């Protein structure tokens, strides 16, 4: 132990341990809630998609103005990245995750392998969402409100599942990274906030011309 306190120690060792305990207690609830929200959004998107398929003139409930427009998003190629509508992936994936999260919240102990599978799932979701954000902002140039709900949920899922797996040892970290990890666990909310604000800023920048026309 060095005599200089590490950043994590300024608030006392207790704070870092508290945060880790908080994560351990809350992770199930966080996964369940975020997955449920994303699941609901995926279901709505799927329903809107079906309506659109049945009636090409249908204007989706979330086509509010030129920028907030599900219609242009849903009709894009990117909306079927794997050859079938993306929401299908969400319905299956988030549905499964919601059940897993609820089980954890109710006290079921998952083995390390299960946690690594959840980590793989949310990591894939995170990468996919990042790609979708890029496509939405810079290729399709429109935003779809329900999709943005999924973005937020996936950011939360990825942040918290990763932090939990790192802090609980499911993903092993070298001792030298321990202080950094403790910091990250203590400031879990800051990490998620920074991620989400980054997306907000990208949106503001990408559609600046449009926002400017609003009075």
């Amino acid at each position, binding site marked *: 132990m060095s005599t200089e306190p590490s950043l994590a120690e300024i608030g006392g060792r207790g704070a870092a341990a508290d945060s880790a305990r908080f994560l351990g207690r809350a992770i199930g609830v966080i996964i369940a809630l975020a997955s449920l929200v994303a699941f609901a959004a995926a279901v709505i998107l799927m329903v809107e998609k079906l309506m659109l398929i049945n009636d090409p003139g249908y204007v989706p409930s979330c086509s509010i103005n030129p920028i907030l427009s599900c219609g242009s998003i849903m009709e894009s190629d990117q909306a079927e990245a794997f050859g079938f509508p993306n929401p299908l992936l969400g319905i299956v994936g988030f549905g499964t995750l919601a059940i897993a999260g609820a089980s954890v919240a109710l006290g079921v102990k998952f083995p390390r392998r299960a946690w690594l599978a959840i980590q793989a799932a949310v990591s894939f979701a995170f990468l996919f969402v990042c790609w979708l954000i890029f496509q939405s902002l810079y290729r399709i140039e429109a935003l779809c409100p329900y999709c943005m709900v999924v973005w937020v949920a996936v950011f939360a899922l990825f942040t918290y599942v990763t932090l939990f797996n790192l802090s609980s040892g499911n993903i092993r970290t070298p001792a030298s990274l321990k202080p950094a990890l403790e910091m990250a666990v203590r400031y879990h909310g800051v990490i998620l906030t*920074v991620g989400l604000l980054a997306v907000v800023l990208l949106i503001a920048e990408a559609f600046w011309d449009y926002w*400017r*026309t609003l009075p």
Partner: protein
Amino acid sequence: MTQNAKISLALVFLVILGGITFFSLESGPASSEVAENPELVRADSHMLSTAEDDRVNLVEFLDFECEACLAQFPTMERIREEYAGRINFAIRYFPLPGHSNSENAAKAVEAASKQGAFEEMYVKMYETQGEWGESQDSKADLFVEFARELGLDERQFLNDVNDPKTAERVAKDQADGNALGVQGTPTIFLNGEELPSLPSYEMLSEKIDALLEEK
């Protein structure tokens, strides 16, 4: 409150504050110009219907690539048919920056109007929107083909499309729209009053009937 929550909240406030500051500094319509003395209808505005009196003035700001405008199109065609010669119905260009071919389409319609085919090209654009809308590539060539199909003089059409005056004419409509607070399309004004987004046929005809019966 934990430090985690404090820092997260502080970041959110910082971004909001920064956004507001930046916004108020730069605010004002994006697309180049705002008309100084905006008019809903100008002498050179294209009329789909002209009445002998001035009792009903219907003005639609539209974008040929906008899906909501396409959704509104059948309603407006029904109104035009129903009230031909009894109301003034003007179309104003309002190409949105988010669409790649909005500007091209508006210029094509304006060029067609030079050969007396405003109506035909206006209808053609909406009938074919599915074929060319949402494309990232220029569809200028396809619009020349439309002109040919409508029996227009192709060379004259091309001259008019490329004439800077045509672009100016479109920009002038847009400047009026900007000044009148048009934010998206379609924006429909009835006797100077902006109607709610995507008015139904019933709502429009009810209002128009009431105006026609006045005095």
